[in-house]
């Protein structure tokens, strides 16, 4: 059971690089990398809001819930 962060897809659609996005939403490239690689344990609403604003998308476009297959 996990939340997948599909930032790469939206970044490719909007043709924006990781460094540029990190600068625009005021987080470090290292933290953006943690987010992209699904290593983050939590995301602040303020960060999510900034990402959605820059990528012109909804939270559901970048966050996906994946359940374990029920036996």
């Amino acid at each position, binding site marked *: 059971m996990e939340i997948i962060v599909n930032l790469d897809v939206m970044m490719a659609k909007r043709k924006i690089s990781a460094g540029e996005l990190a600068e625009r939403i005021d987080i470090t490239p290292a933290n*953006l990398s*943690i987010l992209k690689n699904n290593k983050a*344990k939590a*995301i*602040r609403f303020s960060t999510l809001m900034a990402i959605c604003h820059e990528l012109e998308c909804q939270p559901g476009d970048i966050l996906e819930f994946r359940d374990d297959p029920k036996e």
Partner: protein
Amino acid sequence: MNWTSNKSIRLSKGCVVTFAVLVAVFDLIGWKLLRDLAVHVDTMRGWTRPEMILFSVCLYVLSVPAYILLLHMWKLLSNIQKGNVFEAANVKHLRIISYACAGAVIVGLVGSFICLPVLILPIAAAFMMLIVRIIKNIFQQAIEMKSELDLTI
């Protein structure tokens, strides 16, 4: 005088050094001190030679956990001074400090068989071991919370 956390750490380090010097002084002249006490203290005058030797050995063996404890206290304080507080290394130092206290409890119990009033030492060491273990548990929880916070973007 403005009291800062850095000054507090320096004071603690000073106390660690003072204790280390006291232990070293006892290691150097302890045998003479015990010999003089054996003459002047009524309880000790009745001891046999093997009892006296065993008690002296217990006191000297206590130096080992004392030095280990003081070394790890110094390392712990140095890490805290550098700003590295909630880290796995500090949990390890606290664990070793608690083990050193446990060693002091065991040796102190042996010594208390010869001189009952010495029982206060292993009791105090056991209490200190308990306090240190609780602090170690707190540090472990804090490390988990810090890790959670560090990975909150």
